[in-house]
């Protein structure tokens, strides 16, 4: 058990909050008032039976007295201390929390905020480094600026420049200024969409679509059978043409799913088979991937869903409680999704635990298929989907997975492909 010095302080706090005197509480707990006084001043350890009796006398859980809200607080402060290489007096952590609860909260809050900002910075950094549109647009602007700078300096500094050269440089300046105008416009248009974005900034069309669907609760009644409005959902809420075109393709697929598996049929199948995509597919004759999309996107469905293509790139991300797929870049290689991608037509199911402080547990089911849209002799396409449903904390799990390496704290993961920014080991820090 950790140092329980503040447990005494919590006993005192609780007693005073209830307006009870030491003697009353001591009598109820079957200890002497002087012993309680020592406990309250953290001069005696309190645990086990005595703690349980005190807790009962104070009408509170023993665990709450023992750890209080400070359990999590201490955890956070320990993590903060770990980042400052022995500067903090870790052995006096409990005393710090006990004596300066406000300051402790502030420190922990700052630490959490720093972590969030680190993630936001890493996400932005990833974008800047990996976003081909942005780097192309920037390169174009930089090239034009370089040319303008050199050319303008030549014109300004060379007094007796030959008319031929001068004419040529003027033409170049004109040409580059047009390029700059176009390039700047493209950049502004590209960055403009970020206004409505949170700290992550700069949305890709894929993210824009995900956000748009999330705002609609991931279910579009306009696509269901018998919908009164046949024009379908209004796509004007999507800022970019790329996102609208992506949405159109996705909505067409949703409409087909809704026709193959109407709501009523889905409900009946769910009642008969439970949320087992394979059994529902067998019963309805529908494609397993369609059943999974349908299951995860039913009104109010809690399940998360990710879909990837043969490259492993995520085409669709619906989060679930405790399951937040990465908004950009590659996901965790340990997801059953990728096992299903490699073994089409074979179910991959596992109870997974998400790495991290909260460690939520989920049942994952993944299924992959190959298709040949160009027919015999054409290319092979693959698609895999993974559905995740939260399960209880008490459930056993088979594997711990992350969201993506960058933000995954598992330090000894055999599938790690890049260092994490949240690991506690400084040598692995990105």
């Amino acid at each position: 058990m950790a140092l329980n010095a503040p447990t005494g302080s919590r006993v005192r706090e609780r007693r005073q909050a209830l307006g009870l005197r030491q003697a009353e509480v001591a009598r109820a707990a079957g200890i002497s008032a002087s012993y309680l006084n020592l406990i309250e001043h953290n001069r005696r350890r309190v645990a086990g039976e005595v703690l349980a009796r005190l807790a009962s006398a104070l009408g509170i859980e023993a665990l709450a007295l023992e750890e209080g809200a400070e359990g999590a607080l201490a955890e956070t402060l320990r993590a903060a201390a770990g980042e400052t290489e022995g500067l903090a007096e870790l052995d006096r952590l409990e005393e710090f929390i006990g004596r300066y609860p406000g300051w402790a909260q502030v420190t922990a809050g700052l630490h959490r905020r720093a972590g969030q900002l680190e993630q936001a910075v890493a996400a932005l950094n990833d974008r800047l480094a990996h976003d081909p549109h942005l780097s192309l647009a920037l390169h174009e602007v930089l090239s034009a600026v370089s040319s303008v700078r050199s050319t303008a300096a030549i014109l300004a500094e060379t007094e007796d420049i030959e008319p031929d050269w001068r004419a040529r440089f003027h033409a170049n300046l004109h040409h580059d200024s047009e390029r700059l105008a176009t390039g700047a416009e493209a950049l502004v248009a590209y960055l403009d969409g970020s206004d409505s974005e949170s700290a992550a900034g700069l949305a890709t069309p894929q993210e824009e679509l995900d956000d748009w669907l999330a705002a609609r609760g991931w279910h579009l009644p306009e696509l269901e059978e018998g919908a009164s409005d046949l024009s379908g959902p209004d796509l004007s809420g999507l800022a970019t043409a790329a996102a609208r075109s992506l949405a159109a393709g996705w909505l067409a697929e949703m409409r087909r799913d809704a026709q193959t598996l109407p709501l009523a049929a889905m409900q009946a199948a769910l009642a008969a088979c439970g949320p087992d995509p394979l059994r529902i597919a067998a019963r309805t004759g529908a494609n397993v991937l369609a059943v999974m999309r349908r299951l995860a996107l039913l009104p109010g469905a809690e399940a998360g869903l990710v879909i990837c293509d043969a490259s492993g790139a995520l085409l669709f991300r619906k989060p679930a409680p405790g399951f937040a797929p990465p908004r950009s870049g590659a996901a965790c290689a340990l997801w059953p999704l990728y096992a299903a991608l490699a073994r089409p037509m074979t179910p991959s199911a596992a109870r997974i635990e998400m790495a991290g402080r909260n460690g939520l547990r989920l049942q994952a089911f993944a299924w992959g298929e190959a298709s040949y849209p160009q027919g015999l002799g054409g290319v092979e396409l693959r698609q895999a989907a993974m559905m995740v449903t939260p399960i209880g904390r008490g459930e056993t799990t088979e594997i711990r997975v992350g969201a993506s390496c960058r933000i995954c704290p598992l330090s000894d993961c055999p599938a790690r492909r890049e260092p994490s920014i949240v690991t506690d080991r400084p040598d692995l820090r990105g």
Partner: protein
Amino acid sequence: MRQVSADSFPQKAIHGPHQGRIATVGHHAMLIEDEPNIAEAIRFLLGREGWRVTTLGDGLAAEAEVRAARPDIVILDLMLPGRSGLEILTALRADPVTAALPVMMLTARGQGRDREAAEQAGADLFMAKPFSNAEFVAAARALVGV
């Protein structure tokens, strides 16, 4: 491939701010840069110094051209169509004939990784775009030992 020779450069341009400077005629710079307007400005700047500038617009033939022309300095854009500046640099350094040739790299992107790689591959100097003309000329002169 676009090849422009600066042989027709008007030597009269050696005036103005550079008046009184002794032009070091005879140096030959090979410029591998796909931005024609930047290439033109560089041709003017080095031409005014009395240098001969040969420009190549893409990376594919660069290595062979450098080996054939044996310039005094190579000015190499890091981002080129056909073949990257880094690849060309690596090839030049691997060949004993060009291993010691002064190479100035022009970089436009967020430096970082590319620049690190070019440094390891043996670039003598980096010039980040947009550059100042004076700095550019000074760097080129320093590299050929003027």
